[in-house]
Structure formats: C-alpha cells, structure tokens
C-alpha cells in the first residue's frame, strides 16, 4: 500500500505537534517548568494531556486488533486500563500530588527517607520506561511500513526526532499542550471515519459471511484454556499497574493541588471511557469485513485497513490518512511522556553534573537525547523479538513493584525502607523474569508457562507480602519523620501545618548547618516557602 495521503497526514501531525509545542515554549522558564510544568495546569487541560499520553498505539491499534482476533475476553484490556485510573484516583492521586515530589524516586525518598530506596526506584523507572518505549518505536516503524512501504527505521527515527524536538526546548510545559492536542486528535481520528464505516457496513449486513465469523469462542467469554486465570491476572495487572507507570505518575505533579488532582483524574475517567468504546467498534467491524487479517497475522493493522476494505479510491485514501494521523499521534504522545519521565529521573538521579538551575536544564536536555538514542538502539537490537506483548507485561511489572510501594507507603505508617526495597526486588525480579522468558520465547508448558505469560496474579501478592513482612521484621527502623510525612500526604493544602521541608530539587544538598536543620522540625514551614532548610533525616549522605 503506497498511500501519499497518509504520508502527508503523518508529516502534518508532526509539524502540528511541533507548532503546539513551540507555543507552549513561551510559557516555560524554570526548572520545575521542565519537569512538571510548574504545577499550573488546569484540570481539563491536564486530563486531556494525561489521556493523550496514556493512549498509546496499544490502545489506538492494538485493542481493535485483539478484539478482532480473540473476541470478548479482550474487552478486559480497555476496562482494566480505565479502571486503573479509578484505583489511582481513590488510593493515590491526591496524596501523591500533596507529596510534592516530581518523580517516583522523589516519592520513595520522601516517604522512606533512604537513598537506597531512591536509587532502586530510579533503576526501575528506567527499566519500565524502556520496556514501554521499545514497543512504541517498533510499532511506529511497522505502521509506517504498512502505510507507505518505507523501511522500519524510517518510522522509528522520525518518532525519535519529533519527540526530541518537542521535549528539548520546552520540557514538560510544551509537552503538556502537545499531549492534550494529541488526545483530541486521536479521538477525532477514530470517531470521524467511524460513521462512514458503520454506514458502509450497514449496507452489507446481509452478507453471507456474517454468520460464520461470529463463532462461539469469539462471542462468548472464557472459552480458551486457563481463561479464568489469564483473565484475572490481566485484570490485576491493569487495575493495579496503571498507578505504577512512571509516565502516568509524573503527570500528577502538574496539578495545582490534591483536590485538583482528584478532579483531573475523574475527567480522565470520562475521556478514557469515551475513547475506548471506539476501538471496540473497529474490532467488531473488522470481524465483519476483514477477518482474514487474523490468519495473516496482521490483526493489529485492522484499524488502518478498514477504510480500504469498505471504500475505494480517494475516500479510502482520505480515511486511511486520518487514521494514520491518529496512530502516529499515539506513538508520539506516549513516547514523549516516557522520554520525559525517564530523562527526568536519569538527570536527577543517575547523572548530576551541576546542581544549579541552568546546569539542571542542560543535564535534562542531554539525558533526553541519550534516552532516545538508547531506546532507538535497543529497538534496532531487538528487531526480531516480538515485543507487542511487552506493553501488557509492563503493567504487570508496575503492579508488582511501584503499586505496593505507593499503596503501603501512603496508607500504612509501618512501611520501612528495607521492606519497600525487598518488595521492589522480589516483585521486580519475578515480573521482569516473566517478561524476559516470554519475550525471548523460552516456551514452558503447563501451568508454569501460563503463569509466565500473565505473571501479575502471582507476583503482585508476593510483592505486597514481602513489603509487609520485611517491614514488620525491621519495625525498629521506621523512617524518622513518618508522622510528618503522613500529615503532608493527607492534610488538605489550605490548612497551615508543618509538612517538612522536602523539595525534589534540593534533596541532594546537605542542610546549611546542623542548627538550621533542627530548626526545620520545630518551626512550621509551608512547603511553598520554607524550602531553604532541609530536615536532617533525609540527607542524601544518610543511607
């Protein structure tokens, strides 16, 4: 398929993204602008940005493909990806925003007061981020190849370049606008062709093929082997994994306060629900008119191929171009979000060349390029490996590592740094082990193999149990300021209380003097003003 209109559409999306990003650039000046857009983003804009970032190619193309191929059981994916935000809303959203941290490692250090816990979280953020980024790049390569016949590296490289151009000048602020724009672009790109497609299918409903494609194991739930375990494991991974994804969590720091964070998340639930109905319809239409794609192993491209199945000539080309624009926006927005969050963590934790404001921004820019280049390299290296399943497994990894750390850290005073670290190690090792074995096709028969394909139902409870048991065993080393941290996490912002003086941009500095440090615990300091002194317990040198 050599579609000139699609090429034009992809180029237009890239140019429009850069233009919107350049507009946001005018508003971005300080370092916290770079990481979190200075927290001044309104709920609706922020909700659009969160949804835009979250709806990756797996949602735009993958859901329809899976429903076409495997039917009703795959409806749990869009439900899980939305319900994940409901659990994020009820357990995490407001406290996470109130913590004042930029990234998950910031949260780990604030709550656990341990630099080791911080480093462990940083490594996990990088691992999860890359695991999610590689499928995005690979998908972009495949999509562009399907549409234009260009080699895979063209799509991969163009996504990488546009992401860099967007992130480098403006950081998070320009990215926020770009991602909000991408949500509405993706929604319209799926919605507009749908009416025409439905009309065309309606004309053909007396097709003789219809009866034969709606077979029992497609229409009726839980027909496959081990279907009940697989479904529940998928539900667990997606419901609890969303709150642990680094690019999702970093978005919550851009809300003005905890209350706004909740309202934003509620808006996200509405936006996601509205969106996820659409790929389901595409999958069902695909079952009518394009069920041969399953046998050909190209179910993932059903969204892009539907127009040419139902229309001819310019109409088909135009509709395909619209859908291609949406798909490309999906690759761009998710990759951008992942790159920003991984680069933020790497520049804050793993490299630190200068502590000043300008050096901070320069480090962020350099690490952005390094992260994109690294991901691109890994994409090329893993070219032959089927990584589409990796996105699903990423949720399992997040659900078995950051999810227990966040839930227990926010709601249980007893979590200690050793407990959290052991939980991260156990959950991370189990779920990552499953990712590696599944990705490299080390097939295992029987129940063990089934558990490896969907590890969450085993790894999530084990990670929770490890964190709780080790914390109970090391009860004597509960973080010194846990009571103050709980006030910070749970008390509404408008109440004047001492919340400690943790600030993510200054965690690595020693307190000016020991006396100033002890002052911080006695005089109430508001988080917005009293950040010149640090509380002594969270010094970077302490471990």
């Amino acid at each position: 398929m050599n579609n000139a209109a699609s090429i034009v559409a992809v180029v237009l999306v890239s140019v429009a993204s850069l233009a919107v990003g350049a507009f946001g650039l005018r508003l971005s000046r300080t370092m916290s602008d770079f990481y979190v857009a200075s927290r001044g983003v309104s709920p609706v804009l922020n909700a659009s940005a969160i949804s835009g970032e979250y709806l990756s190619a797996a949602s735009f193309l993958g859901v329809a493909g899976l429903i076409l191929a495997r039917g009703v059981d795959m409806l749990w994916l869009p439900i899980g990806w939305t319900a994940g935000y409901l659990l994020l809303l009820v357990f995490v959203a407001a406290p996470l925003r109130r913590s004042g941290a930029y990234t998950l490692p910031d949260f780990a250090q604030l709550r656990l007061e341990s630099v080791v816990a911080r480093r462990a979280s940083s490594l996990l953020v990088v691992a999860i981020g890359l695991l999610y980024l590689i499928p995005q790049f690979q998908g972009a390569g495949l999509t562009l190849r399907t549409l234009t016949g260009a080699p895979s590296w063209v799509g991969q490289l163009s996504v990488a370049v546009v992401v860099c151009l967007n992130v480098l000048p403006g950081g998070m602020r320009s990215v926020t606008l770009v991602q909000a724009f991408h949500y509405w672009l993706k929604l319209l790109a799926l919605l507009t062709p749908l009416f025409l497609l439905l009309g065309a299918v309606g004309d053909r409903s007396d097709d003789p093929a219809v009866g034969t494609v709606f077979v029992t194991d497609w229409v009726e739930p839980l027909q496959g082997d081990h279907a009940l375990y697989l479904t529940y494991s998928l539900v667990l991974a997606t419901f609890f994994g969303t709150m642990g994804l680094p690019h999702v969590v970093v978005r919550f720091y851009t809300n003005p306060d905890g209350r706004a964070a909740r309202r934003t998340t509620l808006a996200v639930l509405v936006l996601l629900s509205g969106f996820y109905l659409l790929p389901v319809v595409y999958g069902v239409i695909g079952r009518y008119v394009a069920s041969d794609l399953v046998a050909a192993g190209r179910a993932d491209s059903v969204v892009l191929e539907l127009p040419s199945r139902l229309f001819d000539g310019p109409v088909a080309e135009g509709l395909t171009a619209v859908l291609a624009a949406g798909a490309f926006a999906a690759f761009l927005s998710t990759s951008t979000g992942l790159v920003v969050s991984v680069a933020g963590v790497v520049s804050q934790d793993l490299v630190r060349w200068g502590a000043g404001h300008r050096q901070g921004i320069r480090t962020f820019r350099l690490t952005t390029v390094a992260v994109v280049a690294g991901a691109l390299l890994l994409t090329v290296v893993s070219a032959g490996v089927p990584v589409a399943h990796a996105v699903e497994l990423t949720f399992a990894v997040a659900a078995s590592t950051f999810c227990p750390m966040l839930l227990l850290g926010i709601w249980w005073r007893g979590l200690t740094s050793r407990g959290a670290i052991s939980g991260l190690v156990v959950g991370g090792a189990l779920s990552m082990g499953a990712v590696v074995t599944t990705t490299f096709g080390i097939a295992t028969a029987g129940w063990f193999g089934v558990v490896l394909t969907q590890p969450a139902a085993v790894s999530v409870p084990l990670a929770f149990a490890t964190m709780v048991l080790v914390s109970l065993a090391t009860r004597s080393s509960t973080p010194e300021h846990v009571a103050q941290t709980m006030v910070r996490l749970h008390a509404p912002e408008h109440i004047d209380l001492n919340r400690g003086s943790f600030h993510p941009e200054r965690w690595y500095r020693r307190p000016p003097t020991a006396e100033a440090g002890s002052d911080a615990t006695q005089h109430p300091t508001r988080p917005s003003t009293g950040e010149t002194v640090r509380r002594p317990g969270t010094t970077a040198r302490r471990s």
Partner: protein
Amino acid sequence: MTPEAPRARVRVTSPRTSAARTRNVSIASEIDEQTRLGEVYITSLMRSQLRLALGVLLVLASTLGLLPLLFTAVPGLAGIHLLGVPLPWILLTVVAFAEIIGLGAFYVRRSERNEATFSDLLDGR
C-alpha cells in the same frame, strides 16, 4: 424622695486561681508537635479516606471483578441478547465504563466532604 447618689462602680474580678486554665493550643499545633492528640486527628482523616477508598474497591471487585466467575458459573448469560448485542459485550463495555465513572464521581464528592470535615474540626467549628 431624694435621688440616690450614684454608686461607685465596683469591678468584680476573680483571679480564679483554682480554675483550670483554658487550653490555648490549636489542633494544628498539636499536629505540628506530633502529640498523641495530633496523631489521633491525622489518623482519623486517613482512616475515613482509606475506608472510602476500600469501599470503592470493594464495590468494583464485587461487580466487575466477579464477572469472569459469573460467566464461568452461568454460561447461559452469553446467549442473552439485548438489542441484538450479547449480554457480556454490553456488560464489558457500556455498563463497565458507566460504573467506573460513577464510582469515580462518588469518590471525589465523598473524599472532599471528608476533608471539609477535617478542616472544620481544625478551625474549631
């Protein structure tokens, strides 16, 4: 009747040294100083929010979460059609999303009420 001479004002005061002094310590400073009482207030806020969150999770688990078991236990459900669409497809799309949004809206309202109660408590209202 002669007008009474204006009486001298007598100020009645009492040092009330034996009475208990009124506590002039606000709940906010109890919390700041991490006293037992301050701890109780924060814990009560956390408990009310956690109970609400667990309630939402419980509702979600006992409706959406039980669907796979229900489909296994009652295979006949897949044969029921509403407006030509099989029941599982309706339950797993429109109904599920409506429930998720509804629970989210309920949670936002109730959690803001919990926080309002807490800050009223601190203001002494």
